C-alpha cells in the first residue's frame, strides 16, 4: 500500500517476485500438463495390455537378424522390378489424372463464390472432400480390391478417389482467394456465368491448379508404391511376395528402387512446377 501513498508517483520499492503469468493462468497451464501426463500414462497401460514383452525384448536380435539377411541387397532382382515399376508409375499418373478431373468440378461446387447453392450443394461437396481426405489411399485400395478385384484398376481408382479430397480442398481455397474485382469487371461486360468463370476465375487459379496437380502426383507416386500390399498392383505386390517368402535381400532391393523412384519423381515435379508457374 505504501506505493500508492507515495506522492511522487513512483513506488518506494518494487516487488521482488516476478512471474510470467497470472497465478490463475499458471494453475490452468499446470493442470493441463498434468492431465496430459495422466492421460499418457493411462493410454500407455491400455495400449500395452496385450503386448508380449518377450517379443519386445527379443527385438534387437530380430533386427540384427533381418539386417544381416538384407545385406547385401540382391541387385540382379532389379530386372524383375522394371515392369511393376512401370505399373506403379501408371497407377500414380492415371490416378492423378482421374482425381484431378473429378476434383475440379467439386472444387467449384464447394467454393463459396462459385457454388450454385450455399445451403444445398456446398455441404455435399465439402462432405465428398472430407470423406475422400479422411480415408487413406491404402484403405481405398483395400475396398476396391474387394469390389472390383485385384489389379492395376483398383489401384488407379483408389489413387483417384483419394486425390479428389486433396486437390478439391486446395483448389476450392484458391477459388475463394481470387481477386473479386477482376471477376466483377468481367461480369460488368454482360458476360454469361460460364464466361465469367472462364475469363474471370480460371486464369487466376490456373497456376495454383498446376502446382496442386503436380504436388499430388508426387505424393501419389509415393503412395502407389505400397498399394500392392493389398493387391492393387505395382511394385508393392513384389514387396508383399518377398516379405511373405522372407527374402529380405530382395526386400532391400525393392526399398532401394522405391526410394530412388520417389527421389526422381520429387525432382521432376519440382522442375515442372518451376517451369509452369
Amino acid at each position: 500500500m505504501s506505493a500508492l501513498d507515495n506522492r511522487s508517483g513512483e513506488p518506494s520499492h518494487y516487488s521482488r517476485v516476478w512471474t510470467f503469468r497470472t497465478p490463475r493462468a499458471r494453475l490452468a497451464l499446470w493442470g493441463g500438463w498434468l492431465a496430459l501426463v495422466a492421460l499418457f500414462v493411462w493410454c500407455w497401460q491400455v495400449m500395452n495390455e496385450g503386448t508380449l514383452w518377450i517379443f519386445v525384448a527379443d527385438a534387437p536380435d530380430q533386427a540384427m537378424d533381418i539386417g544381416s539377411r538384407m545385406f547385401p541387397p540382391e541387385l540382379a532382382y532389379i530386372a524383375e522390378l522394371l515392369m511393376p515399376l512401370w505399373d506403379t508409375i501408371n497407377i500414380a499418373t492415371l490416378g492423378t489424372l482421374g482425381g484431378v478431373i473429378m476434383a475440379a468440378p467439386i472444387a467449384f461446387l464447394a467454393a463459396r463464390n462459385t457454388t450454385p447453392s450455399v445451403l444445398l450443394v456446398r455441404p455435399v461437396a465439402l462432405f465428398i472432400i472430407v470423406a475422400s481426405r479422411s480415408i487413406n489411399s491404402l484403405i481405398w485400395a483395400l475396398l476396391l480390391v474387394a469390389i472390383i478385384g485385384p489389379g492395376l484398376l483398383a489401384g488407379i481408382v483408389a489413387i483417384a478417389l483419394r486425390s479428389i479430397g486433396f486437390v478439391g480442398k486446395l483448389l476450392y481455397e484458391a477459388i475463394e482467394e481470387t481477386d473479386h474485382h477482376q471477376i466483377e469487371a468481367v461480369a460488368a461486360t454482360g458476360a454469361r456465368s460460364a464466361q465469367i468463370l472462364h475469363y474471370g476465375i480460371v486464369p487466376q487459379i490456373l497456376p495454383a491448379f498446376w502446382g496442386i496437380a503436380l504436388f499430388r502426383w508426387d505424393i501419389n507416386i509415393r503412395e502407389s508404391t505400397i498399394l500392392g500390399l493389398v493387391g492393387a498392383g505395382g511394385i508393392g505386390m513384389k514387396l508383399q511376395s518377398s516379405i511373405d517368402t522372407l527374402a529380405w535381400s530382395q526386400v532391400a532391393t525393392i526399398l532401394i528402387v522405391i526410394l530412388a523412384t520417389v527421389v526422381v519423381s520429387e525432382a521432376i515435379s519440382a522442375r515442372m512446377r518451376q517451369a509452369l508457374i
Partner: protein
Amino acid sequence: MLTLDKLTKTYTQQDTALSDVTFQVPRGQVVGLIGPSGAGKSTLIRCINRLVEPSSGRILLGETDLVNLSSGDLRQARRRIGMIFQEYALVERLTVMENVLSGRLGYVPFWRSFTRRFPGRDIENAYRLLDRVGLLEHADKRADALSGGQRQRVGIARALAQEPELLLVDEPTASLDPKTSRQIMRLITEICAERQLPAIVNIHDVPLAQQFVDRLIGLRAGRMVVDDSPMSLDEAMLTEIYGAEDWNTSEQDDDPDPDDRSQGPMRVAGTAT
C-alpha cells in the same frame, strides 16, 4: 440518355448509402461525381449496372428500366454499359488483346469465347481501339506486364469494345501519378466527345474534375447536395460537400499531415495549374 429517379440504397435499416438521388445525363455529357469517402459515389455507380442491387427508385437507360430486369435481360443491358475501374480490374494473367476482347463476351456465344475465336469484326475493332489508346504494339503482352497508366488504357479499350451507350468510370486515376491521371482523364473525355457518350466519372480529385468534366454532382452522406457547372464551384459548395475547411490555403504552405494530402480535394491545385 440516362435518368436516375429517386434512386435509394439501404444496406441495413439504419445504414443508408444513397437516398432519393435524381438526375439526368444527356448524350455526350461527362458528369463528375465528387464527395468525401463513404458518401456513396461508388455505390451509385455500381447501382446503375447493378453490381450493387438498388433498394428502390428507377434507373432508365433509354427506354429500359434497369432496376427490374431479370438476370437474362440484365446481361443484355450490361452490354450497353461500359465500366472502367479504380484498380483497372484487368484479368492479370490474360493478354491485353484477350482483356479487350472480353468486352465482347456478352455478344458472342460461349464456344467462341471458350476457343478464343472471336468474329473478325470484333478483332478488327479491338485493334482499332488499342491503336486509339496507343497500345497497338502491346496487344500480345500479358496485362500484368504493363504499367498503371497502360493498364487503365486497356481498361478503357475493354469498356469501349462493348460499344456502350453509357460509360461508368469509378475513380479512374486513384492509383496513378498526376501526369498520367491527366492523360487518362483527357482520353476519357475525348472519347466521350467523339462518340457522344454520356459518362459518370466518380472522382475525388476536385481540380482534376473541374478541368475535364462538363458538370459536377456533389454527394454527401448519400444525398445530392450540389449539381452545377464545374466553373461555378465555389468555397461554399465545397464546404457543403466536404464540411468546413480553409480551402484557400495551398498545400505547400502548411500541410501538417503529408499522408492526408491525397484525400484533400485541392491536391493538384499547386502542381497542375
